[in-house]
């Protein structure tokens, strides 16, 4: 597989996408994700109102022909803000996920090949970092660095790369035992060459599936931080922040909560369904593995 040309690789991703679309979960998932990506790109040109424009005479209004989802507590159009509310989340997690995957994947594969004391030390450190569950490590870093997208992107990329090390290492372990790796070693290739030419092509599938799952968890983390007030700073629209703001007025204007809830949920469900379809298409069914 190490000798595949770029054209052949492009062909393979088209094939994988087609196979994913053939499954109901993949078709629904990919459609949802594509819709959200498209919306993130196009929304600044197609939103009906200015997301900052307040209307003091029309606060917490119900749906009308002008404001389809009503207005929020400052009289801003909810639909406009829902349409724009995923941009920051998609930008931050969309950048941080590949970064996490690349650094975690490379380090994991290298450790899996190399073994020895480096591996032992690194895995103890990984254990230590994973002993802080969920958004906790993110919260600790935010205490120190403050919040905002420019802090969150590297932070998310760092912390979500750590579990990837473990997955990549386990995947590499399975490959390392095979004959072609021994052959490469016998030919006297350097470890980094073995990683690049023999191991990486064989673990990319596992890493892709892992990356899709990590993306959805990262989005969950990002929105939770936003909801807690440590993510996107107002007046920028963000679903987590919108839910947090609108929740106080939930009995008066439930659409202010339901709008962003539906948007966020459909995106995350879309990613999960796509990840599921990707795993099944590539023959890596992860339903038995525990979720960390």
């Amino acid at each position, binding site marked *: 597989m190490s000798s595949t040309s770029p054209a052949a690789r492009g062909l393979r991703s088209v094939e994988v996408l087609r196979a994913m679309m053939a499954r109901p979960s993949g078709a629904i998932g990919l459609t949802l994700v594509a819709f959200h990506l498209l919306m993130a790109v196009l929304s600044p040109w197609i939103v009906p109102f200015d997301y900052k424009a307040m209307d003091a005479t029309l606060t917490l209004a119900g749906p009308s022909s002008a404001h389809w989802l009503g207005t929020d507590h400052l009289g801003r159009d909810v639909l406009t803000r829902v349409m724009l509310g995923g941009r920051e989340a998609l930008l931050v997690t969309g950048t941080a996920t590949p970064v996490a995957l690349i650094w975690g994947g490379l380090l994991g594969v290298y450790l899996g090949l190399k073994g020895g004391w480096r591996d032992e030390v690194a895995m103890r*450190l990984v254990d230590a970092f994973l002993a802080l569950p*969920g958004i906790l490590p993110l*919260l600790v870093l935010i*205490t120190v660095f403050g919040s905002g997208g420019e802090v969150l992107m590297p932070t998310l990329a760092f912390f979500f790369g750590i579990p990837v090390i473990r997955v990549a290492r386990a995947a590499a372990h399975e490959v390392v035992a095979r004959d072609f790796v021994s052959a490469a070693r016998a030919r006297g290739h350097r470890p980094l060459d073995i990683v690049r030419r023999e191991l990486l092509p064989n673990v990319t599938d596992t890493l892709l599936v892992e990356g899709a799952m990590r993306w959805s968890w990262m989005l969950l983390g990002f*929105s939770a931080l936003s909801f807690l007030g440590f993510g996107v700073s107002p007046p920028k629209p963000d679903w987590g922040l919108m839910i947090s703001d609108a*929740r106080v007025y939930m009995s008066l204007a439930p659409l202010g909560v339901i709008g962003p809830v539906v948007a966020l949920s459909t995106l995350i469900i879309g990613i999960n369904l796509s990840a599921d379809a990707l795993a099944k298409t590539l023959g890596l069914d992860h339903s038995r593995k525990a979720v960390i």
Partner: protein
Amino acid sequence: MLALIIRRLALGLITVWLVSVIIFLGVEALPGDACTAILERDAHGEALAKCREVMGLNTPALTRYLDWSGGILTGDFGLSANGQERIAELVGYRLRNSLLLAAGALGVGIPLAIFLGVIAGLWRDRWPDILFSTGAIFAMTIPEFVAATILILIFAIWLGWVPAIVLTPADAPPLDFFPEFILASTVLTMLMIAHVMRMVRASMIEVMAGDYVQMATLKGVPYWRIVFRHALPNALLPAINVIALTVAWLLGGVVVVEVVFNYPGLGRLLVDAISDRDLPVVQAITMIVAITYVGVNLVADILSLALNPRLRSHQERGA
């Protein structure tokens, strides 16, 4: 067996020690310290020097690490940054409240998850399985705060059955948290069930396809006896570790849920401390969570070693 347990114990201790080093060094390596964080713009000259004196920031880092980690071993977490309160006192009742919430979720959630998992596994690919498995995927994908908000909207605002938020003070006796407690606990239960259920389902399917189940069927053992006596105990073994991971997840997820419901637990204390940039409190809570996480996983590891002879002999040979 004993050697294995000791090995696990040692690994757990190393992990906790590393976490403490990471947390300490992480704060140490950053620009500024607890004093610049509290004083903010006033952090210069005499005020800064005095604050550092009071907080003991002038001693070498190693001494401070030893003091800090030694204090944790004896349950003394030092003073908080802003109010000069003892962190141990600040944490006490809130830790109890969080544990109460987690216990409520686990007590209801785990039996329910096992029950649903068994049903889904036995009726694989038929309507009970499709119903529960789809529900589980939704429960796993929807963020805690979204689920909590939806439940508040439905049960507290539209139906008015339960109060939306908790107003009980942190040090109230446990029973005072009742009706308010239900929604918060339900959210955690709902989200938690999904993982455990999926695991039980998968291992139930695997176990029911095993030779000894077929043997029992051929011998004429009644179906439900096979399910409960032969299959279920074996199917639950792999679930132990998933339950431990779920507990760990609860510790993280509880932060958001506590904020949504205004529940006076450790998670809300953490969020308040972050807003106040109270580093000592953040460090202390992080340590408590890490210790709990390692402890729970250790117990799960030992339990599954003790209950599963195959795993034991396999690992003894491996080690």
